[in-house]
């Protein structure tokens, strides 16, 4: 994209926009990691898209009420995820990106900078959705259904509106609370939003006669026919190639985008200018003398440091919680009375699996995610002793959470609880040791991408925790 920038007026909107897109694509490339694996997955997915497209040749895809309501339901769900992502990206833009100082001190109108940044946010959030939809939608469009070329356009419109909404919510929180609070709230809201949609769909789909959140929403839209006529039908019509609908949807999105740039520009600028001042405020004097910070022994020192770092990084804590929540579907059969496997073995399985994943995550943070490795390296401490202390700290932090399910099992069967507890401990230790053995040092903030380049380690941990979980479930089942 650099070549394209050379051909544009430096400092112009398009130039800034291409720069943002360039940064977003590079960030996405870094985040996704394992380029070859992802390229292969996309290729396979695209081939599946062509297979589907070849089967749909000659099959009419008409804007029936079902199709229109379905598209609207998908749009609502996608927009909720996109808005969550946009909130988090807005936080990054406001507080983490290092380029705003440069851009805002350059002789450029701040509004232009904001619009370009908004484009960057939109581009950033569009990648995942494009990867999911376009490998299927484009082959179908190419092989006889050109109307589906409206899908990427609808995706773009959704991303633009979600980017504005995400930024507006972030700025509103900043206005009501402080930037620091806003950052924390956005991270928590983001985690809860992501998790709640996911959990809702899982819980709804688990019970007899219940349905997924998507299907529930679709059913509700169908009953009221919101997507079948009027404004509600526009996304569906646009996705299926209705030209006036495409113009209306994209035009409205562009209007919202431009309007957000104009309306939010000043608020954005004020909150950015205030951010450093308010972010560096003194927390006030903590209670107790300075002596409370000094501990004897390497383990106590490491534990205090790791516990504090985790406590003060809500984003990290919620990322970990979110990852555990995503494991719930595996454990969920335990709650499907009469349909799934028996309760106790399933709980034992879930407990061991979750404990292993949690211990693995925390072990990565303490062992690999060391922000001052040189400090540890120059300290008069054996590397192995420091790592053991870090691993122990990770396991101790994980312990209260890992104990929950074994304790729940103990209420029904103490013998089963002993097995679950033993396997939970073994799994947590094994997951920690895997992290220790295959550690890949990186900054803590890269926790979300820690599997970059170590796909096999992730797979190994998952398989190991899964197998130990199955073993625990089997043993609990054996003792009845």
């Amino acid at each position, binding site marked *: 994209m650099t070549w394209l920038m050379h051909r544009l007026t430096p400092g112009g909107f398009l130039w800034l926009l291409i720069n943002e897109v360039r940064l977003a694509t590079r960030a996405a490339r870094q985040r996704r990691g394992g380029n070859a694996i992802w390229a292969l997955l996309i290729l396979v997915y695209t081939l599946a898209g062509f297979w589907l497209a070849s089967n749909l040749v000659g099959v009419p895809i008409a804007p029936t009420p079902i199709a229109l309501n379905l598209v609207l339901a998908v749009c609502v769900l996608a927009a909720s995820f996109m808005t969550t992502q946009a909130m988090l990206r807005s936080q990054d833009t406001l507080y983490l990106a290092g380029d705003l100082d440069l851009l805002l001190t350059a002789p450029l109108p701040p509004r232009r900078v904001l619009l370009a940044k908004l484009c960057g946010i939109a581009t950033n959030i569009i990648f995942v959705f494009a990867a999911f939809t376009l490998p299927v939608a484009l082959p179908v469009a190419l092989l006889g259904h050109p109307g589906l070329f409206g899908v990427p356009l609808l995706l773009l419109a959704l991303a633009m509106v979600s980017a504005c909404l995400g930024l507006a919510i972030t700025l509103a929180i900043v206005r009501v609370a402080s930037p620091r609070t806003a950052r924390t709230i956005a991270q928590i809201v983001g985690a809860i939003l992501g998790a709640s949609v996911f959990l809702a769909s899982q819980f709804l789909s688990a019970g007899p006669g219940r349905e997924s959140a998507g299907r529930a929403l679709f059913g509700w839209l169908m009953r009221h026919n919101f997507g079948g006529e009027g404004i509600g039908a526009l996304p569906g019509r646009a996705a299926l190639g209705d030209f006036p609908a495409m113009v209306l949807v994209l035009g409205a999105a562009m209007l919202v985008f431009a309007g957000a740039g104009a309306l939010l520009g000043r608020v954005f600028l004020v909150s950015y200018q205030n951010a450093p001042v308010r972010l560096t405020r003194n927390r006030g004097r903590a209670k107790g003398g300075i002596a409370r*910070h000094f501990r004897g022994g390497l383990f106590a020192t490491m534990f*205090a440091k790791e516990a504090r770092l985790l406590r003060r990084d809500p984003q990290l804590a919620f990322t970990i919680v979110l990852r555990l929540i995503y494991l719930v579907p595996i454990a969920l059969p335990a709650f499907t009375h009469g349909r799934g496997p028996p309760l106790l073995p399933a709980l034992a399985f879930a407990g061991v699996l979750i404990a292993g994943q949690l211990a693995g995550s925390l072990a990565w943070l303490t062992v690999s995610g060391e922000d001052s490795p040189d400090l540890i390296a120059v300290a008069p401490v054996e590397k192995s002793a420091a790592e053991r202390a870090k691993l122990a700290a990770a396991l101790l932090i994980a312990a209260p959470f890992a104990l929950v399910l074994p304790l729940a099992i103990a209420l029904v069967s103490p013998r089963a609880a002993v097995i679950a507890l033993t396997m939970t401990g073994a799994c947590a230790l094994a997951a920690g040791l895997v992290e220790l053995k295959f550690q890949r040092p990186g900054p803590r903030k890269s926790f979300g991408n820690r599997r970059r380049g170590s796909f096999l380690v992730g797979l190994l941990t998952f398989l190991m925790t899964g197998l130990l979980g199955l073993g625990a479930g089997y043993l609990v089942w054996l003792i009845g």
Partner: protein
Amino acid sequence: MSEAALQIEGLSKSFDKRVVDNLDLRVAPGELYALLGPNGAGKTTTLRMAVGLTRPESGSVHVFGVDALAEPLAAKRLTAWLPDEPMLYDKLTPAEYLGFVAGLWRIPPAEAAPEAERLLKWLELWEQRDTPCEGFSRGMKQKVALAGALIHRPRLLILDEPLTGLDANMARAVKDALRAVADAGAGVIVTTHILEVAERLADRIGIIAHGRLLAEGTLAELRAQAGSDALTLEDAFIRPTRDPEAAAGA
């Protein structure tokens, strides 16, 4: 001759090219030594080898007589390292950071806590002791890192470009702190690429370029070596290293 705070002999290291080349260096206890050289001269690599962060290809490093390559932990117990990028945790407060560093060096809490209080007050960080470091200026972070380096009372203090990015007041405070540490009997080594800093700060100056020690001595000794025609040490030692042909012609 008394035991050296730091004795380096025949130290060599290559990455893509030779970075440190058969270097000898001796710093006495109570001495403030400045290693002066242009960027890429091999200063940082030399010191990283001295503190055990980089393994030398050949040569030896002794800290107060302790072989740092054979007994790294014993040598590290005596040494503090302060790189140009402070080794801090943004989410920890200065008091917590000092608690962590003291724990790593296994300083008993009863000893470390009063020393931390003294250091924080001395470096004018006491009011910020419970504020996370993430919002601190570069100078304040540098002072927290300096407090961390001093909390275990090192006998050898090694600092890489300690005055980079500090304002005049802060630089003065750091210089005073280093002088006080040296006067208390510790060996102090600082690297710098700014001649003026070396001139004002150090008891002795070593001039390094292309991984080799070109000259060494007190300011007066170096001036004498430079000869009466040279206006400054820079004229005598640094400029020729930037322009090998000029050096050959001189």
